[in-house]
């Protein structure tokens, strides 16, 4: 009896919290179906005249179709940085776990020592160094720093260490496989679940990245979505002439998070896997 009462109370609390977490999404979804007048004049949490298709058309035509460029840039940066960072982390993680080479322990200690350096503190000096190398305002200024993923290396080292027995690698060596072959045909397939997690996290980190591209890029044709939408938002609030209207920005925000939410729902297992591997047990 008291358990049932408790269970009702528990569900009420969960219900209220769920409203809190989901309300902004509901608002965004509803707002994206309104034109700018509807946005200002209708009740904000319910539908009025349906203008989603118009909004999408205007969104992709605004400023010469620059939104599509931003979308493509975000996807491009995420894929290149994600795949690159995962490949580099896989090689290094495997080497740290399974190959004996001089300096290995020192290098790994250095990695552990630097894993806590806050990324925000590095943006300014990286910008200054990049500008000396004439790389500022190019795609490389965004992609190259994103290839470094010390936490991914750490995670893969732990995973390889715990889940791939030495005998498995030794057997492949005795069969005559070279070191690289052992890595690609024995170790890599066994690392797959951890690789997916690292790939997912580094792609999302790149898709969400803001500070680095904000500082590195001034050509709006190179902007990722985050920097581009913020630029639109700034001009809309300042009331600049010809600026994107709020309804366009709202629609742009919705289009930007839909792929993430779809990916999130489909790959939940790996998200949670990554969090639990990476945190306290």
């Amino acid at each position, binding site marked *: 009896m*008291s358990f049932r009462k408790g269970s009702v109370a*528990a*569900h009420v609390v*969960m219900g209220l*919290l*769920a409203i809190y*977490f989901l*309300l902004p999404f509901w*608002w*965004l979804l509803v707002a994206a179906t309104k034109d700018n007048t509807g*946005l200002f004049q209708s009740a*904000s949490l319910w539908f009025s005249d349906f203008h989603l298709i118009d909004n999408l058309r205007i969104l992709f035509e605004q400023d010469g179709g620059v939104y599509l460029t931003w979308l493509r840039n975000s996807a491009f940066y995420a894929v290149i940085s994600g795949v690159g960072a995962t490949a*580099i*982390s896989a*090689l*290094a993680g495997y080497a740290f776990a399974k*190959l004996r*080479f*001089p300096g*290995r322990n020192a*290098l790994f200690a*250095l*990695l552990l020592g*630097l894993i*806590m*350096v*806050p990324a*925000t*503190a*590095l943006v*300014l*000096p*990286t910008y200054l*160094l990049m500008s000396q190398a004439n790389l500022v305002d190019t795609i490389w200024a965004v992609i*190259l*720093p994103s*290839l*470094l993923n010390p936490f991914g*290396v*750490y995670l893969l080292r732990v995973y390889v260490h715990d889940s791939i027995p030495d005998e498995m690698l030794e057997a492949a060596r005795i069969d005559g496989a070279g*070191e690289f072959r052992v890595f690609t045909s024995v170790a890599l397939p066994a690392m797959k679940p951890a690789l997916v997690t690292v790939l997912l996290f580094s792609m999302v980190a790149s*898709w*969400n990245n803001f500070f680095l591209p904000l*500082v590195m890029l001034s050509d709006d044709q190179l902007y990722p*979505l985050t*920097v581009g*939408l913020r630029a639109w*938002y700034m001009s809309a*609030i300042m009331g600049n002439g010809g600026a994107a209207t*709020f309804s366009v920005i709202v629609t742009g*925000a919705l289009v*930007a*998070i839909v792929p*993430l939410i779809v990916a*999130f729902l489909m790959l939940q297992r790996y998200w*949670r896997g990554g*969090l639990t591997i990476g*945190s*306290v*047990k």
Partner: protein
Amino acid sequence: MTEVQTSPAAAPAAAGPSAKTGTQRSARVKEAATGWLFALPFTVLLVAFLLLPMAYAFKISLYRSTLIEGEVFAWFDNYKQAIDDPLVREGVVRVLIFGLLQTPVMIGIALVAALLIDAATSKFSRFFRLAAFVPYAVPVVIGTLMWGFLYSDSIGPFAWTGIDFTSSDTVLASLGNIVTWQWAGYNMIVLYAALQGLPRDVYESARIDGASEVQIALRIKTPMISSALVLATLFTIMGTLQFFTEPLILQPLNPGAITQHYTPNVYAYNQAFSFQQYNYSAAISFLLGAVVFIGSYIFLFATRKRSALR
């Protein structure tokens, strides 16, 4: 062809055990070479985008740029200036207040949510787990933009309350709400994972002794995940010390309330990119980075038995 066939056969006969160690040694050299080759791309990146920028930031933070003499070595003058700068202090005090108020609220929500999904096994609790975690999947920029609209007195759903969410009195709380919304679900999953790792039979014996579910949650489960709780709290505080994106995005809503020196990182950013004070900016970010870095390690060292960084 005959040579190839004879030499391996002949060698052991001639040299016995030393040939065996020879092949072992060559295998070891090969392994070491492969190891270096595999670790090389990562090492290059580590040097280029972590060690080098750190060293460079430290170097330029020791210089001052003057009109007459150009760059002048100035020892720790920039650091002295940063520590004495009332605008830096204001930002530091603000992020500390923010951390002390927002963190317990968010970790509290995360803990309640984690305890609820750990205890309830209904369909709704699985749905809830997802709902709470979704905001984490949204880029911080877009989450902040969304809340910027929700706070609006013309198009937001809370306009009827008449509250000005971006006045200088309320804006810190409004920013705190954005961070809570975005990160509570993440912390919930971390705490939930810790709860799932606890031995279930303890609850069974407590239940037999007549403990209620609430008592089990508060008196048994919560103390047992205390190290995960402390870790989540400290990481959140480290994050709030670096507070940057949310205030920068909401700044145009009320530049008088969200100033150019609102947080230390916003200040460092503006010093560098609005005023070209790179040396001073480097000193501020180096100082902030050092505080976060040292804080994280003292903390990880203190709790190292329980943490993943062994």
